[in-house]
Every structure is written in C-alpha cells, then in structure tokens.
C-alpha cells in the first residue's frame, strides 16, 4: 500500500447520484486482485478517508476506474473534484477476489446497487480465463442502473429493480433459483442484508462475498470495520483481511 496524489482523468455522472471517476498513478501497478479498494481523502471538510472499490484498471495506462454513489458529505464533496486535479489516495487496500484460484466452467456474479462496481473487473478476468459468466444485477430503480451494457458483453445478464422500472420487479435474489442449477461458484457484492440472503440461498455452492463497513484507517490498525468469523480467532477486519471473504468464513448479521 502506498499514499499518492493521483490525477483525475475523467469524472462524470453515470446514473442517479452515481459517478465515474478515473484516476491515474503508480498505485494502479500495485493492484493484485479485482475487488481491492482505495481509501480517498476527499478534502479538509471531512475527517476520515472514504473507501471506494476499484471497478476496473489498466496496468499499461496506470489508470483505475472508481464508481461511487453519493451517500453523505464525503462523497458529496468528492463530486466537486474536477478533471486535472489531484486526489490524496491510499491504496490499493485489502484482499480481492482470488481469480487465480478459480477454475470453474460457469460462475454467477450477483451485484446490488453500488456493490456492482468491483464485480466488473472480476468479470473481465474470469471471462479472459474462458469461464462462462451469468450476472444478476439489482438496483432501486432504472435511474440508478449502470454497467448493464458492459456486463452484457461478458455474458448473460438478469436485472431486477425494486420498483420494476427496469428488468423484473423485486430483488436481485429473486433470480437465483432460476440460474443456480448450472453454476459452480458465486461472487457477490452489495449491502450485508443482500449478501446474507445470497449466501443462504446458495449455501451448497462455494462463494466469495465482498463486504462494506464504515472504516477508520483502512489499513487494519483501528479495528473499526470488523465482522465476526466462524473460527477461533472470532473476527476479520474488512479493510485488510477482506473486503472479499469466502462466504462461510464470516458471520453475516
């Protein structure tokens, strides 16, 4: 992990309250797995950094794409950063999806809301390994949806929205029973309540979940972002032991 002032190359809105931010810098060269995150100091108006998952990256160009949703003051302030400005970034943080260890025929990706972004580079890497991908994407409403075309280029995509304005009305988990028969493994990221529902419905399959929590340091020192685990140790730190865990490793409340 290092701290670097990365340059903003692109910054635009892609859905309701949702932004695409492209940063350039050496931190990109340190990315080892899809699903890692960066910890951003937005400015003097906020105290702590804000963790944002890496959606995609390009080693050659030293660029990374972050997709974030405005959730409060920190992300609100972030929207005002302009192309050409530099941003105080710590990263890459945590452990991502262990793509190297995956050797399946067909996998299921399940993303909910702003949990969708870290699955994108994962999908690209899985596809490059020749693995068939089925993706379930869930959003509040059609206005909140993003990355649909990008995922469709990589495999079959099923969409659901809470209000039925796009895809099927309901939750992303409503699709699971229809697609689970043919897949060997699942990868999911979204709110904890969704991760819990997904891991319960797919309890007989191996899977990886990516979690989020309010973080302090983002490097494993402050113990703010812990989740209970099933082993004797009793906990995992989301920022450095995760954010990606084997589904059976942690206890989802």
């Amino acid at each position: 992990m290092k701290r670097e002032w990365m340059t903003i190359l692109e910054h635009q809105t892609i859905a309701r309250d949702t932004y695409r931010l492209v940063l350039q810098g050496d931190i990109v060269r340190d990315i080892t797995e899809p699903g890692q995150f960066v910890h951003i100091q937005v400015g003097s108006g906020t105290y702590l950094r804000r963790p944002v998952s890496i959606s995609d990256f390009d080693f050659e160009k030293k660029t990374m794409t972050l997709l974030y949703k405005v959730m409060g003051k920190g992300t609100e302030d972030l929207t005002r950063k302009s192309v050409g400005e530099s941003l105080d970034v710590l990263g890459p943080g945590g452990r991502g999806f262990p793509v190297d260890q995956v050797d399946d025929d067909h996998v299921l990706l399940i993303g909910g809301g702003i949990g969708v972004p870290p699955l994108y580079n994962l999908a690209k890497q899985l596809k490059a390994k020749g693995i068939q991908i089925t993706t379930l994407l869930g959003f509040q409403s059609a206005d909140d949806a993003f990355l649909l075309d990008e995922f469709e280029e990589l495999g079959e995509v099923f969409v659901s929205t809470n209000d039925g304005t796009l895809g099927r009305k309901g939750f992303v988990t409503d699709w699971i029973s229809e697609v689970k028969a043919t897949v060997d493994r699942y990868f999911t990221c979204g709110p904890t309540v969704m991760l819990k529902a997904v891991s319960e419905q797919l309890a007989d399959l191996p899977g990886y979940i990516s979690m989020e929590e309010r973080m302090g340091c983002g490097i494993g020192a402050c113990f703010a972002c812990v989740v209970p685990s099933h082993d004797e140790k009793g906990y995992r730190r989301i920022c450095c032991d995760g954010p990606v865990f084997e589904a059976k490793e942690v206890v989802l409340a």
Partner: protein
Amino acid sequence: MKLSQSLPGLQLKNPVMPASGCFAFGKEFAQFYDLSELGAVIMKAATGEKRFGNGTPRVAETARGMLNAIGLQNPGVDAIIEEEIPFLSTFDTSIIANVAGSTVEEYVEVAAKISAHVHALELNISCPNVKEGGVQFGTDPMLAEEVTAQVVEASEVPVYVKLSPNVTNIVDMAKAVEKGGAAGLSMINTLTGMRIDPKTRKPIIANQTGGLSGAAIKPVAIRMIHQVYQEVNLPIIGMGGVETADDVIEFLLAGASAVAIGSANFKNPLICKEIIDELPRALETYGFTSIEEVIGGAHDEKARAGIFRA
C-alpha cells in the same frame, strides 16, 4: 537541533509517538516507514483475556474529528507478549504497553505479565467505551489512586497513567495518581460523545456513545495539560488532536514533555514520521534551540495569578 530526552523508563530520540489504539501493534504502519524513527510506540490496550469489542458501526465522523467505540478489542496479554511485542522489539524505539482491565485484579495481572517486556506502562483508566472498568477508575480520584498504587507495585517499569477528560476537575485526578505513585501522566483520552442519524433516528455508533478524538478536542487537551502542569510534578505525554509540528510545540508549551499522535494516523499513515521530520525546522522558526526549552514554556503566567489556579 537536539530532539532527544529522558523520561522515566524512556530514552526518547524525539518527543513523538503514536497513541494507543491508533497504531495497533505497529505491523500495519511498518509497511509505510521504519518504526525506529519513532520516539516510542504506545501499543493498543492489553486486557487479561482476549476481547472482541463492540458491535459495528464503531466509528462516526464529526466536525474536525471522529467518534470511536471499538471496545478494547485485543488478543489478550499473553498473545500480545508472544505474538506482537517480538515484532516491535526489532525496532530501535521504546515500547509502552497500554494496560486495561475491568477490575483492579485484572489491571495488576496484565501489568505484572507485560511489564517485563516493555519500557513503560500506560495505565488505561479512561476508556469510555467499555461497560465495566476503565472509566470508573478514571473519574473517581480514590479509585484512581488505589489502582495506580497496585499497578505500580506490580510493575517492573515506570507507570504513566492515562487520564480521562470526562471529569469536572482534572487536577484532582492528576494529584490522586501522583499520590498513587505514577511516574508520569498521559492525557487526554477521548471525550464521550454521540451522533444521531436523522434517517434512522438512532445513534450512529452501535455502542451509542463513543470517544471523540481529533483536532476538535485539541483545545481541551491543551487546557487540561496547562492546568495539570502547574499543579503536579510529573512528566506529561500530551495527546488529543495532534496533526502538525506546530501542534507538537503547542502541547510542549502547555507542559507536555512528549506527544502522542492518535486519529491523525488514520488520515495519513505517515503522519508520525512527517511530523518528526518537520519538527526541527518548526522549532527553529519559533526561535527554540532545544526541546527542554519548549516544555512548559507557556507558563510564565506562574509569576502572576493564572486564572485556572485553584
């Protein structure tokens, strides 16, 4: 510029150390810089048995600061001695163990075990985030004196007592632990606070209350150190919102002999090293030629009648 000085149990090459609970046991920060650069390291609190701490969320942001309620999560004193201190011992810096507990017996047990492996203890009678122990020892002068005396008795190394700011009269607490045999003070711990989310109508932190830290509490820390320095004859490790070399000088002028940097480590993991590097030039800027010259330098009012004097 000479930055080194001796305090009870500690040969400090500079007056800057990370504060307890903001640095874990050092491993995470060792990837950013050589920990031998630090004046000392104050480890995360040790309790008799391992503790899992509070539910999440454990942190919330505030104006110029943050609330935390981690709940003294730690692997227990034995695991800290076996698995954490050996790593920190590879660096050329002093190690201070933060000792916590629910009962006097637990404080004594932890102190007796860990003191053989470190240079000094910081007796934590001021954690606001655990239900039992901790802060009740830090808000009642008689209990504070008693637990200090027993821990001093059990410890092989000097004991610095970490004071809580959540009291009406900080000087009474400082005097009590001085009477109990403390070798020094560390102050201040966090101020108890709360934030409520209008959307959920509930406190943001799972523990409801948390400890406020960061730049927001610096004036409180400075005021309390300034008060205590005049009344108690013990060296003070000052803390509470240190973020710059100028802040270090402000704490020393108030009466601290050294400073600990807390939440700022979360914003910038390199902050301790950066402040150590900047300190000589900052001292020069204000016309100082040594650290000793700065300590207590704001106290020429002693000749007059200071408004806070009892």
